[in-house]
């Protein structure tokens, strides 16, 4: 139980820091807004084929806005060596991972909550698919991406070129998740007749999420040593 208590305290600290400094989420939301505006200019919303682009745009926003947040989550603990303060405190390394994951995931969900309706609005998108399944796919994809990303951000934070290293490590490992969620999103938003195929993608992503979350949880102890 102590793991969850300290993880929640750490997540609360990160979210409160974000509330005070507004460094991460504002950048993420501005980035998401820019992507949506640029794509809305590039593809004519009146054109029927445009809706085929939307699943891709959603995941472009999640992936790149997510990286902006992930990059900062452990680097922020380098100032004044606050990471050492966490490591000498009576908490498991897994608690630190879990706390950072919860904070990153919460921020990602808020960015999605703001940007995805804005995207639908600007593209004049008529939603004929299943909203609960769409939310499930976005949740599962974000969960896996942030779970792996948080672990790799901890790994990359000790490198001098961590901002370059994180995407290099993250993209190959998260490719199966991204393929799965983009396919599932496309089916759910545009072609519900192939729903069984979307379910198969969702199952794949769920399995991937669980495996990698557990692996990251177990391995974080070796990554966080000073």
């Amino acid at each position, binding site marked *: 139980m102590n793991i969850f208590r300290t993880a929640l*305290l750490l997540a609360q*600290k990160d979210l409160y820091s974000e509330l*005070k400094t507004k460094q991460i989420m504002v950048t993420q939301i501005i980035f998401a807004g820019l992507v949506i505006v640029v794509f809305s200019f590039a593809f004519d919303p009146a054109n029927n084929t445009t809706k085929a682009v939307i699943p891709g745009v959603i995941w472009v926003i999640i992936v790149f806005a997510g990286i902006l947040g992930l990059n900062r989550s452990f680097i922020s603990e380098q100032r004044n*060596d606050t990471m050492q*303060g966490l490591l000498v*405190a009576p*908490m498991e390394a897994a608690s630190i991972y879990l706390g950072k994951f919860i904070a990153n995931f919460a921020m990602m969900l808020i960015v999605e909550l703001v940007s995805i309706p804005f995207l639908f609005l600007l593209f004049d998108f008529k939603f004929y698919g299943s909203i609960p399944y769409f939310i499930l796919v976005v949740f599962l994809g974000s969960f896996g991406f942030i779970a792996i990303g948080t672990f790799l951000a901890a790994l990359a934070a000790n490198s001098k070129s961590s901002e370059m290293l994180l995407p290099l490590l993250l993209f190959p490992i998260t490719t199966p998740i991204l393929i799965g969620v983009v396919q599932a999103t496309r089916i759910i938003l545009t072609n519900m007749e192939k729903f069984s195929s979307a379910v198969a993608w969702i199952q794949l992503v769920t399995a991937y999420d669980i495996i990698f979350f557990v692996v990251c949880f177990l391995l974080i102890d070796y990554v966080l040593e*000073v």
Partner: protein
Amino acid sequence: MIEIKKLTKQADNKLILRGVDLSIKKGETVAILGPNGAGKSTLLKVLATLIKPTSGVIKINGMDLKKNHIEIKKIMGYLPHSSLLYDHYTPLENLIFFGNIYGVKNVEQRAIALVKEVGLSFFLNEPVKNFSRGMIQRIAIARAIVHEPEILLLDEPHTGLDQGAIVILNNVILSMKAKGTTTLMVTHDFKQAAEICDRIIIVKNGKIVDDFRIENHNLGFVSEKYEQLVEGVS
């Protein structure tokens, strides 16, 4: 209280600690002296569980550091060179956060009392980023003792402090000592070591080369011993 046997630490083929054997009793205030690169801070980091030793056994209060690290961390306070404070947080927010992590009861009252003790009660709600080095160090001291640790590990705590901050730091260490806290202090400041410590350990090339007690704050005796062992030989 602290039992270290045959402790070694190797990093990148370099042996930083070469078989350290050390026994420290409860309530002792011990200064660790030595030249740069001798392994003093590494010894402290191993005790603080920040780095894992290559070999050797460390027992604190009879508990093995490897197996009972969470229990040991609860009774340990660590103050390194850096403040370990969140810049945009106020002293109160910093102390409440760390106090909660350590499971301190009535954490807000404890935090307010500590800020008052280090003489910064007027700055209770100012972000730490606006503070001077001395003020930050005072809050860092408060952070290290927020959970009333039984063991205090201090890494060059007097560096960069003005006279007022040195007096406050020494008072804190002495008041903790009066409560029975065991203190290990890595320092280059012989004057402060002689002032507040009752035992001196000299480390050179990853080994303890001398271990003696001092009486009557005899600074001359400490300097003489150090020169003989460290500067005289090198």
